[in-house]
């Protein structure tokens, strides 16, 4: 049966081409119609395919369609081909769905921007690249999408290129991502030369035979792929670009830097679950890095004043959770959190966008406050998102986060420490999110009077996507109610065929059967985390609502710590001093000293030496006839002597 998978990315590509080639010649209505229409078509088509897929038996839910041969070279052969299976359809649905809503939101948000059509052009290109990433049937095509979304991220972060900080941030994002891509590429080389193919199907089928479980090669390959993931998904040590990426327009932050692109790393690891299951060392690294990032980014978010930066660090932190899930071999939980996170984080970002829109570009929370009555729709939807991310029961974040925490505790690869740090990070999440809410929506307005007059609720085109996302943030979790709460985890059952292969490896047989813990333990852990979250919400309420002086005092009494957190642990400065400056200075040295002085000097010196020798020899040329004649005669004499004495 023909599914025409290529249609899914084709729509945004066409949108991109139309808007891109006729840039500046189309009016805004048409541009937005084309852009949103393209993504909408993709969404509806993928929804259609989703139901087609559901109608198939679980084992047959993997459709592969090959368009044409891309790079043939000797035994190396890579196609442009697409793979639709439960994992990719979920990603496609999330990507197109969230993108569609954000496209619509952007019509309102970007309405007065002179780069309106450029914005939608980039946005469509992004959706196209992202769809290539998730639909690819081989690693190399995935890499195309991988770099493609990096490019779009670069373009969109630097969208307001006249602002130096914006174009700096774009460049930084691209280069940091490139460092990750470097690892990704090398990982591909190992896989190809070991397995002889880059197609997912072939690789996953042959890998168990070609790699030794836990061997150096598979560990190296998976670690290198993970390096790529840390770049794309902003994990330690490559997370530095994501907070800066907030220089881009807010819908972009919502779409690319929260909901879709940054989750590509998680998707890639879930996709490669077979490989990762064979490398326990890597899994441990993934879990530790993920948890460290979750915790570390959470602490930074505690002290930030910029509304978008708080959300950015929160994204980094939440991505850390997803990696923890992958690291403890609970790929399904990771993808589940990925999905719910993309709903509520998109919602939060768009909500903050609505706030910023109302505040005429002001992003500093210290100048906000009391916005609840001015922006009711924004407030309510934002609140839903906050509750979801904080992990309050009945909201989607609760189910997914709890699943991860449980797996971190119970899985063969998990440990109590992972759980402890996870809960601590969850508590911090609740704290900084409610700090944000209280500072923004409650209390007295701290903005100047001019800004106060400007306050207004956003137009419908912006609030309706907010509401839809709010609904999703609530119901999104109910597809994966854990067994312990009496639900059926539809979500993981659906994903099972894809993740099945990895979990059926000999090394991992007892991962799923982690039944050594009683349901009571699970419920206890669940309850304790919820209680901790509630406590930290109360703390936030106390510090930022009830007794605002105390928070100031706290800040001064712990000014060192506060500075450290506000300065984001000075990681950027560290990288600057340790990596960037030596490279730039070294390059100047290479240019000025090695190139110009040494190599050119050597060559010019050679020329000078030859010149000097010639000058010396020139004195023989007296210009006098008789000298020449004498030398001539002497030459003849010597020559004859030579002949005679021979």
């Amino acid at each position, binding site marked *: 049966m023909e599914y025409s998978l290529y249609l899914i990315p084709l729509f945004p590509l066409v949108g991109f081409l139309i808007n891109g080639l006729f840039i500046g010649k189309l009016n805004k209505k048409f541009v937005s119609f084309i852009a949103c229409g393209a993504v909408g078509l993709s969404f509806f088509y993928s929804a259609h395919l989703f139901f087609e897929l559901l109608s198939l038996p679980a084992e047959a839910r993997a459709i592969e369609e090959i368009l044409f041969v891309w790079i043939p070279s000797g035994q190396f052969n890579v196609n442009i081909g697409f793979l639709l299976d439960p994992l990719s359809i979920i990603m496609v649905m999330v990507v197109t769905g969230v993108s569609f809503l954000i496209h619509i939101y952007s019509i309102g948000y970007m309405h007065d921007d002179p780069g309106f059509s450029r914005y939608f052009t980039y946005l469509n290109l992004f959706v196209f690249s992202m769809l290539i990433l998730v639909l690819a049937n081989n690693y190399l095509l995935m890499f195309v999408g991988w770099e493609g979304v990096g490019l779009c991220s670069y373009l969109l972060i630097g969208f307001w290129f006249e602002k130096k900080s914006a174009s700096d941030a774009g460049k930084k994002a691209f280069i940091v991502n490139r460092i990750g891509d470097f690892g990704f590429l090398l990982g591909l080389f190992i896989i190809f030369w070991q397995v002889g193919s880059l197609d997912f199907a072939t690789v996953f089928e042959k890998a168990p035979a070609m790699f030794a479980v836990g061997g150096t090669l598979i560990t190296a390959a998976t670690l290198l792929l993970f390096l790529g993931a840390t770049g794309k998904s902003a994990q330690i040590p490559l997370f530095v670009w994501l907070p800066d990426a907030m220089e881009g327009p807010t819908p972009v932050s919502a779409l690319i830097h929260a909901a879709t692109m940054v989750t590509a790393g998680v998707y890639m690891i879930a996709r490669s679950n077979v490989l990762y299951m064979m490398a326990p060392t890597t899994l441990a690294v993934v879990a530790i890095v993920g948890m460290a990032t979750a915790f570390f980014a959470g602490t930074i978010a505690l002290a930030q004043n910029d509304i978008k930066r708080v959300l950015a660090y929160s994204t980094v932190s939440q991505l850390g959770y997803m990696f923890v899930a992958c690291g403890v071999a609970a790929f399904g939980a990771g993808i589940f959190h990925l999905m719910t996170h993309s709903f509520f984080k998109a919602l939060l970002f768009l909500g903050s966008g609505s706030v910023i829109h109302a505040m005429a570009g002001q992003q500093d929370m210290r100048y906000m406050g009391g916005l609840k009555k001015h922006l009711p729709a924004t407030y309510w939807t934002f609140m839903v998102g906050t509750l979801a991310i904080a992990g309050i029961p009945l909201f989607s974040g609760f189910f997914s986060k709890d699943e991860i925490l449980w797996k971190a505790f119970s899985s063969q690869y998990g440990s109590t420490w992972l759980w402890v740090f996870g809960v601590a990070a969850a508590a911090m999440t609740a704290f900084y999110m409610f700090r944000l809410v209280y500072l923004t929506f409650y209390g007295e307005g701290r903005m100047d009077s001019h800004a106060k007059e400007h306050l207004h609720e956003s137009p419908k085109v912006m609030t309706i996507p907010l509401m839809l996302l709010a609904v999703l943030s609530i119901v999104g979790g109910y597809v994966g109610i854990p067994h312990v709460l009496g639900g059926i985890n539809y979500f993981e059952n659906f994903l099972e065929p894809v993740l099945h292969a990895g979990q059926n490896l000999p090394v991992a047989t007892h991962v799923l059967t982690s039944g050594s813990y009683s349901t009571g333990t699970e419920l206890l852990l669940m309850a304790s985390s919820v209680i901790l979250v509630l406590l930290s919400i109360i703390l936030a309420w106390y510090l930022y609502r009830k007794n605002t002086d105390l928070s100031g005092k706290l800040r001064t009494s712990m000014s060192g710590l506060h500075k450290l957190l506000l300065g984001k642990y000075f990681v950027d400065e560290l990288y600057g001093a340790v990596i960037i400056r030596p490279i730039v200075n070294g390059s100047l040295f290479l240019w000025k000293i090695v190139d110009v002085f040494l190599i050119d000097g050597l060559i010019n010196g050679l020329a000078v030496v030859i010149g000097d020798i010639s000058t010396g020899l020139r004195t023989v040329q007296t210009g*006098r006839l*008789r000298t020449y004649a*004498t030398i001539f*005669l002497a030459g003849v*004499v010597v020559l*004859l002597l030579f002949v*005679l004495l021979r």
Partner: protein
Amino acid sequence: MLLDTVIFYICAIFAVGGAVMMILQRNPVASVMFMIVSLIAQAVLYVQLSALFVGALLIIVYAGAILVLFLFVIMLLNLRGERFEEERPKLGLTTKYGLAIIFFFEIVIIIKQTVFTGSISQSPITVASDFGNVKPVAELLFTKYLFPFELTSILLLVAIVGAVLMAKKENNDKGEQI
């Protein structure tokens, strides 16, 4: 025959003496005169070597025409006894004489080693009675060597044209400084 030997030595002395005197003179006119002496002595030697025609040419063309041309130029430029101020030459005179002498001996040794190793020179050479006369030489010139002979005429023509052109006094003196 003794007479031949005597004539040879007398002519040789004159030829060499003339040559030496020629290069040692300051006055170019005297130089030319000594050169003529040397040439006449050489012409006699030519005749002794049965080269009548060439010997005659030597007197007529060299002594008679070329050296007269030299004399003419010397007179024209009024060069008599021009004193050249002494400059310290880079290579001393002794070295130069030495060079010339060594050169001479080298040639002699080569002649000794290569040309006359046998007794050819000792045996009297019998040649045709008209060897070197005008007629046989002319026959050669106009038959076997006709083409080189004609070429010499072209050479002379070119030389004449060149000499005329160069020696012509330039009215407007724009030529480069020599």
